[in-house]
Structures are given as C-alpha cells and as structure tokens.
C-alpha cells in the first residue's frame, strides 16, 4: 500500500497515511466484531439457559448492542474518592491499547496485515500478555478491596498461564521453522491435511492446550476469577462505569478474537479454506481472493470466540487454587512434553509413518465433526420432552401423575 500511495504523495506522507488507514481499519474491525460478540453472547447465553435472549430490539435482537452502547455512553463517569485518579483513568486505555497492538501483526489474508513483523508470533504473545497490566492497575487504583482482590487474582493467573501458552505456541513454530505469522499462514496453503494441527499427534494436542490456556489468559469463564461476581461484586471493574467500563470489554472481546485468530494461524491453516489446493489471492486476483481469505479468517476467529462463549455458559467457575493447580500441575508438564515430542517426531519418525499419521488425524477429525453435525440434525427435537412437561431431573417419572 505504501508503494501505491508513494506515486501520488511524498514518501513520508504515504507511510503516515498507510499507517493511519491500517489503524483505522483495525479499530473499525474491533468495534464491529465487539458489536456482534455482545449480541452473540446474549443470544448464546439465552439459548444455553433455555431462554430466547434479546428479541425486542430489532430483528433477532440485533440492535441490542447499539442499545447497550447508548446506555453506556450516557452513564455518568464516576471515580471513587479513595481512588488514585490518574491510574484509575489510564487503566482502561492501557488494557485496550495492548489488545489493539496485537492486531498489528495479525495477518487477515494473503499480505493483508498491518505490519509484517518477522517475529509476529512472539510479538503477539508479548503484547497480549501486557493486557494484564491495565487490569491489575484498575484493581489497584480503584481503592476498593474487591477490585484489589480481582487484580491480584488476575496477575497470578495470567502470569502463570502465560508459560504453557507460550510453550504451546513454540510447538507449531518448531514445525513451521519461522516466527512470521504470514509465512506460517502461507505454508499451510492447499488441502486441510497441510494444516499444522494435523502434522503429528503433538501439534494436535497442542491446539487444545493452547486454546484452554488462551481462554484463561483472556480471563474468560471458567477462569474468570478476576471478576467472579458471586464473590467479588464485579472484581477489578467494580468501580468503573460508562465508557471506561466498556473499554475493558472492548479489550476483552478484542483479545478473544486475537487469540482465536492466532490459533487459526498457527494450527488451523490461517486464511485458507482447506478445500482449495491453491492460494486464492493469486488465482482470483488480489482483491477478490483476499475477500474470500478475510472472510475465512474472520469466520475461524468467530468460531473460536463462539466456542469460548459456549464454554463460559456451560462450565462452572473454578476456585483460585484449582485454577493454579490446573496450570502448574497439568498444563505446564503437558506443554513441555509436547515441545520435546514435536522435536523428536520431526527428527526420528520416518516420512511414511508421519504422512500416514497426518492423514489419519485429518480425516478422523473431519469424520468426527461431520458425524456430530449430522447426528445433531438427525436428533433434532428427539430429546425434547412432550409439550407442557419439563425435561431432565424435573421430568415426571412414568406412570405417576
């Protein structure tokens, strides 16, 4: 983009303008994605809890996020007397800036990237782990005990989960041989068995460990100890209202999409569909091909966020000692084993064995997903109780009134 702008503008202006356009696009994407995620969260939680979710605000309740936004903007922006005003005010922006900076190095398609860092994966880990600083600062500066507890928990949790998360990122990087996210994406072009997740059993397991630890470092349930509304009122954001509060949630949704996108890039083929044996941007032209690429990448990211929401509304919250134990006693050793295993696999396993394992993993996964979807459609409505009766433990035993 800099080159084409340089033809009509001096070079420095082209660089500045290109940067401004990229930043504007990223902010617009984060805002738009957050709009959909807020609506989706309400709908998903409603369906899981046997409710309808928002229905009055527009078709399917689609304007609910707009209503929420208007409510948040018009709320009074307060700060408690005991708070450290400067830190209290700056904390939400720090959290949001960290989440925003992660998107700079995230490729959305073939050469569709804010800035193509040669160490993109490492940079993503660095900036996403600094989001915790804003949250801790919010907890400390609020001058409230509940907020402080939330901040301390968040710090302990995120600093611990950073270790297995980083080790799980190294596993596909060992396979790819580069830290550049756009190169890792380019390597997985073609059919879906070229994806890193099917490379060997270790990368296959690493995807799930990475996803769980990334959920924990986004402080999503069942790891949302920092806000734990049943114990800590609302945790680190107890004292926030209005726009500052919404910045925390913008940061949370942005980092959820960023880690899902990172998982898609490192493990699941990035912007490739997995069913086209060529690079769409080269075959269909840059703009048309990348339209498909960006749609596929955003779809994979949204799917990851959807699974996070599904987990949040299905699983109960862990206790803080269970959270720490899960990380230090299970995820950390498992990720070390995965790292050693993927190195040994690449060095010592003969090509015939690794190719056959790759096909078994790929086609087994596809068959499993296909089977689950088909059975869900085949059983649609079969598990429901008759009209006027309740399901599950409330169901009336047969023969009784």
């Amino acid at each position, binding site marked *: 983009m800099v080159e084409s702008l340089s033809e009509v503008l001096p070079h420095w202006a082209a660089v500045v303008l290109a940067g401004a356009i990229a930043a504007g696009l990223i902010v617009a994407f984060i805002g738009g994605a957050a709009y959909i995620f807020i609506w989706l969260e309400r709908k998903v939680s409603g369906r899981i809890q046997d409710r309808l979710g928002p229905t009055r605000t527009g078709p399917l309740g689609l304007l609910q996020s707009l209503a929420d936004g208007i409510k948040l903007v018009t709320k009074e922006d307060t700060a408690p007397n005991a708070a450290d005003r400067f830190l209290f005010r700056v904390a939400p922006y720090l959290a949001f800036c960290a989440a925003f900076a992660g998107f700079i190095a995230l490729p959305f398609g073939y050469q569709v990237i804010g800035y193509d860092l040669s160490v993109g994966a490492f940079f993503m880990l660095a900036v996403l782990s600094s989001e915790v600083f804003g949250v801790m600062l919010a907890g400390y*500066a609020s001058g409230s005990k509940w907020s402080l507890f939330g901040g301390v928990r968040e710090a302990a949790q995120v600093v611990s989960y950073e270790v297995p998360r980083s080790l799980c990122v190294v596993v596909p990087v060992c396979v790819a041989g580069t830290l550049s996210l756009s190169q890792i994406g380019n390597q997985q072009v073609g059919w879906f068995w070229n994806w890193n997740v099917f490379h060997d059993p270790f990368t296959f397991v690493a995807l799930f460990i990475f996803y769980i630890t990334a959920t924990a470092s986004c402080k999503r349930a069942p790891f949302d100890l920092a806000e734990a509304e049943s114990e800590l009122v609302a945790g680190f954001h107890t004292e926030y209202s209005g726009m500052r509060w919404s910045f925390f949630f913008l940061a949370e949704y942005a980092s959820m999409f960023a880690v899902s996108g990172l998982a898609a890039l490192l493990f699941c083929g990035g912007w490739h569909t997995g069913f086209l044996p060529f690079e769409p941007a080269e075959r269909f032209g840059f703009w048309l091909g990348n339209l498909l690429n960006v749609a596929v990448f955003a779809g994979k990211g949204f799917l990851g966020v959807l699974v996070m929401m599904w987990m949040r509304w299905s699983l109960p919250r862990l206790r803080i000692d269970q959270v720490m134990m899960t990380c230090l006693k299970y995820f950390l050793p498992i990720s070390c084993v995965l790292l050693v295993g993927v190195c040994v696999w690449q060095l010592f396993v003969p090509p015939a064995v690794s190719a056959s394992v790759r096909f078994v993993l790929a086609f087994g996964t596809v068959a499993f997903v296909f089977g689950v979807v088909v059975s869900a459609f085949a059983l649609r409505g079969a598990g429901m109780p008759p009209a006027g009766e309740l399901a599950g433990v409330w169901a009336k035993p047969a023969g009784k009134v």
Partner: protein
Amino acid sequence: MTLPVVLFALIAVVTAGSALGVVFSRSVVRAAVWLLFSLIGVSLLYFLLGAEFLGAAQLIIYVGGTLVLVVFGVMLTSQGPFAGPRTRPAEWLAGGLLAGALFALIVSASLDLGRPAPPTDQPLPGVGPLGLTFLGVPEQPGEARGLAFLLPFEIVSVHLLVVLVAAAYLARAKKKVAQPPTPGATR
C-alpha cells in the same frame, strides 16, 4: 528532517519524559506506570531501528514480566493505600550526583562515536541467523563451527532455576512437628 528522525524525536521525548516521571513520582505504582511508558518507548526505538526480535523481547520481559511483578508485589505487601518511599535530602544529593556522573559519561562516550552511517536498504538478518549463531551452526555447510552460546545460556538458566527453588524453599510455610491426631481436629 526525514520521517525516521521525526519519529525518533517523538519517541525519545516520550521515553525521557516518562523516565523523569518515574523519578518524581511519590507512589511506587505510579512510578511503575511511568516506567511502563518509558520501556515501551525503548522497545519502539528498537522497532524503529528494525530490531524486531529485540523490541518484542523487551515488551515480553519488562512489560509482561517485570512490571507486572512490581505491581503484584506492591499489591501483596503494601501497608497502606498508595504508599511510596519518602526520600531524604541527602539521598536526593547522592542520587543526583551519581546520575549526573553517569549522564556525563554517556554523553562523552556517545559524542566520541561520531555520526552513524546512513541506514541501508538491505534487509536485516531475521531471527533465523540469530538462532543459528546462538547454537553455533555455521551459515554455509562446511564452514568452521562458530562460537556457540548454548552452554553458557544453559548454565545461567539452571543457575536461575536453582535460585528460584532455593527461594521457594526458604519462604516455605514452616510445618509444625507432627502431633498425634486428636479426634474432631480439622486439618
């Protein structure tokens, strides 16, 4: 005035200004926030010079690690809200003298360096050559093996691990001498 020079001036002003903020803050946590801006400024300078790995390492180690631990430590140990150290005039004097001497040393050393060479358009070596040099693998097959840094690195990391284990051992909760269990006693 080219764009890199303007950007350098901007980042340098922010870095130096936040460094002053660190010195003049009363509260430890406020000093940590100023230090955050200062360290981010330094990492942006690395990015500006094209040292991407160094910039990202600066972010992950100092911002994601050290500063989080500073604030975490203050949260756990602080006696009152928003506490900070009180400095005596003698400490200001000693600190000022030391800082002035260090600043004079750095200024005289950097004036001796001369003007930097203009940046070339050649692509900078990425992390691949960096890692291979670190492991002592020659860039062209057949060359002599270079100096490897893997063994010193491992020695340092095992040393750090030993220090960590020892610190955890010293700070452990002292167990009482085992007593015969009394009925109804909870553990």
